[in-house]
Each structure stands twice: as structure tokens, then as C-alpha cells.
């Protein structure tokens, strides 16, 4: 279901990154909620009131559940929920894996904010239209 403002869920164990990205997303006209870990997001997804983001931004390297694990869990719940990975590590293997698993994009930190917002919008649209094609990556 689409709404006026897309809702972005941001998952990163680094608090300042979360805060900065949330700020950025809100400034771009979208809503954002930040979670410190994948477990928090999963829990929130299953709790009331219902929480249904249009896109999830996932940090790859996180203590506990890493980004891939979170993606798997989300796919079980909602196969069409778009995921954008953000990471400081640049490993080709990780990128391949991420995209093969259906990620919309794989962004390397630090990234340009315009690119980031554009990626998010594309991801949201795809999710709304149900497409699974991979979006731009940087």
C-alpha cells in the first residue's frame, strides 16, 4: 500500500550514522526510522501498531545479526520489501552476494547524499510496482 510519504527503515549499529541518515531522509521528504540492530527491526515488524516500511537500509557489518541475515529474515516475511545495503567494507564477494539475494543496491560508505536519496526513491518505486530488477549501485 502506498502512502503520501514513503517510510524508510534504517538499520545501523553506529548511532551517529543512523542519526545522520535519518536526518537526510527526512529532509528529502520521506519518513525514516532508525534501528540499532536487525533484531530490533524484526521485533518492530512483528509488533503493534503495525510497522510496514517501504524500504530498508541495512548496514552490512553489525554485531549479532549482520545485514545478510536480516535480509533473509525479511525475505521470509515480505519477499518484495526492497533492501539497500550500506557498508564501509568493499568486498566484491559481498556485493555479489547481496545483489544475488535480491538487494536493490549496494552502497559504499561514505556515499553522496544525492545518490543515496535517488537509490531510496528507486527502491520505493520498485517495491510499489512489485519489480525485482536491481537498481543503481554505487
Amino acid at each position, binding site marked *: 500500500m502506498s502512502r503520501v510519504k514513503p517510510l524508510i527503515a534504517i538499520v545501523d549499529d553506529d548511532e*551517529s*550514522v543512523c542519526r*545522520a541518515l535519518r*536526518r*537526510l531522509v527526512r*529532509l528529502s521528504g520521506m519518513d525514516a526510522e532508525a534501528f540499532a540492530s536487525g533484531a530490533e527491526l524484526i521485533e518492530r515488524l512483528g509488533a503493534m501498531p503495525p510497522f510496514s516500511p517501504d524500504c530498508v537500509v541495512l548496514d552490512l557489518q553489525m554485531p549479532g545479526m549482520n545485514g545478510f541475515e536480516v535480509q533473509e529474515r525479511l525475505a521470509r516475511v515480505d519477499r518484495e520489501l526492497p533492501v539497500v545495503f550500506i557498508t564501509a567494507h568493499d568486498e566484491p564477494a559481498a556485493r555479489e552476494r547481496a545483489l544475488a539475494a535480491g538487494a536493490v543496491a549496494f552502497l559504499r560508505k561514505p556515499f*553522496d547524499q544525492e545518490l543515496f536519496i535517488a537509490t531510496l526513491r528507486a527502491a520505493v518505486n520498485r517495491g510499489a510496482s512489485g519489480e525485482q530488477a536491481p537498481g543503481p549501485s554505487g
Partner: protein
Amino acid sequence: MPVLFARRNLARFSLGRVSARTRALLSVPLVGAGYYAGGMVGLAFWDPASGSSILWPPNAILTAALLLTPPRTWWLYLIACLPVHLYLPAHAALGDPLLVKIAEFAANGLQGLIAAAALRAFTDGSPRFETLFHNLKCMTAFIIVAALAAPAVASAVAAYFFVVSGWRADFWSIWQVRFFADVVAALTITPFVLLVVSGLAALRQVPARRLAEFGLLMAAVWGIGILVFGSEGRVAERFPALLYTPLPLLLWAAVRFGPAGLMPALVIIAFVCVRHAFDRLGPFVSQSPATNLLSLQIFLIAISLPLMLLAALIAERRARTLVLRESEARFRSLADTAPVLIWMTDRDKRCNFFNKGWLDFTGRSLAQELGDGWTEGVHPDDAEQCLRTYVNAFDARREFTMEYRLRRHDGEYRWVLDKGVPRLAPDGTFLGYIGCADDISERKLAEERAWQVVEAAPNAMLVVDQAGKITLANAAAETVFGYARDELIGRPVEMLLPERFRVHHAGDRERYLADPTARAMGGGREIFGRRKDASEVPIEVGLTPVRTSEGSFALASIIDITARTEAELAAQRHRAELAHVARISTMGELAASLAHELNQPLTAILSNVQTAQHILAADPADLDEVREILQDVVEDDKRAGEVIRRLRGLVRKEQPAFAPLDLGSVVRDVVLLVHSDAVLRNSRVTVEVSPGLPPVQGDRIELQQVALNLLVNAFDAMKDVPAPERQVVVRAELEGARMVRVSARDRGTGLAGADLERLFQPFYTTKRDGLGMGLSISRAIIEAHGGRLWAQNNLDRGATFAFTVPVAEAHAQRPVGSALDPAGQRTNVQ
């Protein structure tokens, strides 16, 4: 003759074969029998015309008996002889009254008592034949007391009694006949009895030839006696010189056989003379009976006296010569068997004796060495000094000792130690020198070798006496301290120490000598010596006590450890470099995670700044939002700065510097450093720091490196463990009272037993692309801190690596490394 013979036999029988007590008991009747026999002999030669006998043996025999027995037994002999005297047949036949006989016996006894008592006193209680007659003084005493005085007194007493009792009228005639009869008997019979009793045992030792000679001589005396005294009276009148013919034989007996030969000869002559005179033969028959008797008696006395004195003199001389000869022989035997070289000189410095040892040593004859011949064997280089010492000492009558080389029989010159002392006669006259030399070549060689060893030793060696003066220094000592040897000998050893050590050293020295043992000097402290140019040199000193006859010394063996110290410093620098390389390597391993650490704040900063730009571009700009953003940017920047700081600390390359630090903060810093790496590896790190941990003395960088090494290893250990189980617990806590322990406990697979120690060896690694230096360097670092690094398997799973570092106070004394100045020279840290 038969009587005498019998008595001699009896005497021999009583000597030594039975016990003393039995002997004493037997001798009483023996003396009685002798008295009786003597009385019979005297009566046999009784001259009724003169009313007297030529000689009266009983008194002489009694005197001999009293001389030979202890005074406390004398009464026994007197008691035994009294009845004999009273009942002598002749006496009875003569019809003398009992009182007269008793008086006579009393006089006889008195004669014996006087003689025995006086001679006993003279000879200190042992009047034997040897003591009385082999000595001129004692012979003289015997003659005067026993042969003259005692008879004179006894005769006077008897004569007095006879006159006073009215039995006789003429005092002097009685005295005279008794006196001369007693004197003749005393001179001939008494010594003969003493000879028989005490001298016969000696006969056993006389060689047969001598006995034969003696026998022949006695036979000759007898023969001459018969010839002279047995001839008709007219022959003697025509040839008065005949009287002297026995004299040469008697003289020969005295000279050849001493008193022991003379006495029997005198007895023979006396007997022959008396016997023939009684038969009206010989030269003593031409006058009146009384005159004849007196002449005979005087003749016998006259030949006995001088011959006895002569015999005693000769015996004395002979004994003295024997003693001297024996002493000489003893000396010679001692000198020749002594294992040293003995020499003697006379008064004019010339040698008159060399012992067998000397002659064997030099291989020369006595004739060659006597006088100054011995000087030919002295080494030419030593001769002058040797002679000078000898002559100077000789002139000063002083002892001397000298060392010189003497040529041995094989031509080799050997060092000898020669000592000479002056010889003095008992009266203090200087007689010359006597000395003794010993071959000390071996000792000198040993000394030489010992000195060569000391001289060649690479260590400086000094010998210091109790007063602290250097008495010996080897070549290495000159090198180490820069002094010439003669600048060291005799100087106080403190001059080789820097000023600040001198005060204590004197006290240390005394304490050492009070309890000297072989030990290192300094008690573990660094010590320095002072060279001549006032520079200081780091040294190690070992002390050994040396005790000699000249006192106690200390031998100091000194090693200049400058090179070693520099090597140690170089090694330390090496280690530090290696540690640095290891840190760089670790940094490389952590690069990815460090990049991640930096990336997070950078991402946030970029995002925030761009957001802020957007906000500012809007109209109106939300400045509050911008301020918030900027605040976040500042925080993120600081965060990045911290990462850089930690990183910089990791790769720093300075020399280690020790200071008190908090291990807890070190551990926390390290954990932050590896945060991203932990995340990357899906490992959790828990930090437990005990509150109130005391500071430790150490280098922050190095300890951080070690903790980092342990943590990274812990992560590696768990890489095959399922992610949820990967946990590392890092603890910092007190161990005991003096150490702080940091441990990293993982939940990996643990370590094989052999690996527990092998891990710490250089180049040992279980990582595919690891250097293998991390743990060995870590251990070197911890050991340099005075601590310990080890690994052990946990009881449940995994392993724990831990290290300890001493708490700061315990480590205050020895700041290794802090005393280094950049030039690498040590400075004093006292």
C-alpha cells in the same frame, strides 16, 4: 783364688737372673761370706812379727757391698758381718777379747759407712764402677775418701779404743798398720769387687780379640810379677830397676782397657807381690819385718794411685771423644739423609763441608766443592749478587736468605733457596756458618706459570691487600683502566672508582675481608670504574679471597662490559624495531576494520554536512537544525580523531619509555581499536577491569601491542566456531600483591599441549599468512617489563592468554632503558 773364683761365680749368678727382692735377700749372706773369705785371705797374710796383715780385704769388701746397696739395707749387711767378724777362726785363736773384736768391727763398719755415704753423695746415689772410676773427679774422690780418709778415721777410732781400753799402748803404730793394710785393700779389692759386680755384663759385648788381648796382658802381668817379685832378694837388690818392669804393662792395661783393665792387673800384681813377700821372696825382704811390710804397702799404693788416676783420665777422655764422635756421626748421617743441600763454613768464609745431598745435586766431589770451589756452580748472572749477600751477612754475623741458580749434575741451572745462619760454640765463639739450600725450580716455575696465567687473562686482575692497596696488577688491568702498572702498585684501589662510590667502598672492603667468600661485587647493582682520563667504564667485578703467609688479600677479576652493554642496548633497539614491525604488521591485519572505524564517522559527517547545505539553501533556513547537525559533525570528527590517535600510537617507532600507567585504560583502548574487527568477525568482546587497579611501570605502546596481539589471536582462534558462540572476555585484575594480570579468554578450540610453549617461539604460526613474530615479540616485551606471558587451555573450551606486569612500586629500582641517552652511553643511575 778358689775363694775369689767362687765368689765371682756367685756374683754372676746373682746378677739379673732373679728378682730384685730375692737378689737383695741373697746378697746379705753373700756379703757375709765374702767378709769371711776376705778375712781368711787377710789372716793368710798375717805377719805375727808386725801383728798385722799386709792387706785387710774384709773392710774393702764391706765398703764395696755398702756402695752397691741402698742405705736403708746397710744395717742388714753390718748385722750379717758382725758374727762373721767375731767368729773368724783366727780371731778366736788370737784370743782377742770380745769387746776388742766388737770395737774392731765397729771401726771396720765405720770405714765402710764413711766411704759409702760420701761416695754415694758424690755420685748422686749411684756409685757404680763406671760412675766412680771412669771420671777423674770421681776417681779422685774415691781415692781420697774411700782409700785414704775412711781408713784413716777408722784406724784412728780403733787405735784410740785399743789405747783407752788398755789393750794396746802405741796409738800410732796401731793406726799405721791398720791404715796401710786398709788402704792397700781399698785401692785394689774394692774397685775389683765393683768391677765384677757391675761390669761383668759388659764383657758380653767385648769382641773376642780384645778379650784375648786382655787375657794375654793379664798373663804377662802375672809373669812379670812372678819374675820381679818371685826372684831372690839379691836379684832385686842388684837390679832395683826391675821394680819398674811391671809398670809398662800396667800402663798398657790402663791406656788400652781403662780402669776395667787396670784394676784386675793391680789385683794380680798385689797378689803376686804379697804372696811372694810372705814367702820371703822379692825385693821387700831385706829390712825389718815392719819396714818390709810398710815398703811393700807403700810400693803397691804408689803404683796404684797414679795409674788409677791416669786410667780415669783416659777413660774420661775416651768417653768424651766417643760422645763427640757419635755426635759427629749423627750429624753426618742426618746431613747426608736430609733431602736438602747442606753446607758449612769455617771462620774465614771458606766452605769446609757439603752433605751428600749437595754433592749428588751438583755431581761434583767434596774436594772440588770445598773452599770456594762451590762458586763455580753458581749461574754467572747470579754469582755477584749471591756472593755479595753472603759476604755482607757473614761480616755482620747475620742470618741470610738468597735465591740463585745452581748448576745441577746434568748441566741444567736450577733455582735454589739458600739460607745460612751463624754457628756459635757453647761459649759464644763464632765458628763459621751453616746453611741449607733447596731446589725451588718447580715452585718458581709454578709461580711463573701462575703469573703468566694472570698476566694473560683477558680480565683485568688486581690483588688488593687488607689496607686497600693494590699489590698486583696484570696487563689487562693497564688496558681497562689506562694506568701503567707501576702507577697502580701500592696505590689505594679506590682510585679506580668514581668519586661517588669511594665512600662506601672502604666500608664494603672491610666487610668483605671480615667474611671473605668468592662472590660478585656490587650486589646486583651496576658498577663503574674510573679510568686514568677520568672517564667511566661499566664493569663487572668478581672477588675471591686469597690467604697467604703474608696475610689476607682479595683478588678482583674485572671485566669491562662496555661492549656487552652496547650489545645489550643494540639488542634492545633491535627488539624495539622488531616490535614496531610487528605492530605495523598487525596494523595491516587490522586495516580493513580500521578503515571501517574511520568510515563510520566520515559517512555520518558527509551525510550531515550535505544535509546542512540543503537546509541552509532553503528559505527560511532552519538554523537550529543546522546547529544540531554541526554538533554531530564535531562529535564524529573527534571520534575519527580518536581512531587516528589509536592508530598512530600503534605505529609509533620510539624507544620504549617506562612510566606508571593504568593497565585498565590500556585494555579499554585496545578493545575500542578492535571494535570493528570484532564486528567483522562476529565476535563479542567483554571487558572486565577490576576497580582500583594499581598502576604498573611500563611502556604504553608496548603493552598495548601485547594486548592487541592477544585479542586478535583470540578472534583468530574462534574463526571456526559458530558466530553466536564467539566471545572473548578480557580481564585486568590484581595477581597477588605485586602483579597486575591481563588475560584474554576465548571460546575457540583450544591449543594442543605442544603448542602451549611453541607458540611463543619466533616464526611459529598457525595462520596462513602470519609472520609468526607476534607472540615471541610479545613475550620479549613482557619479560623486559619484568613480567610473564603464557597460555593455558580453559577447562570448558578455548584457551586463555595472559600476561602479568609488576606493580609500579616493585619496579622502581631498575628502570632498564630509562638510563639510556641517545648516544647509547650509559649514565649513572645511582
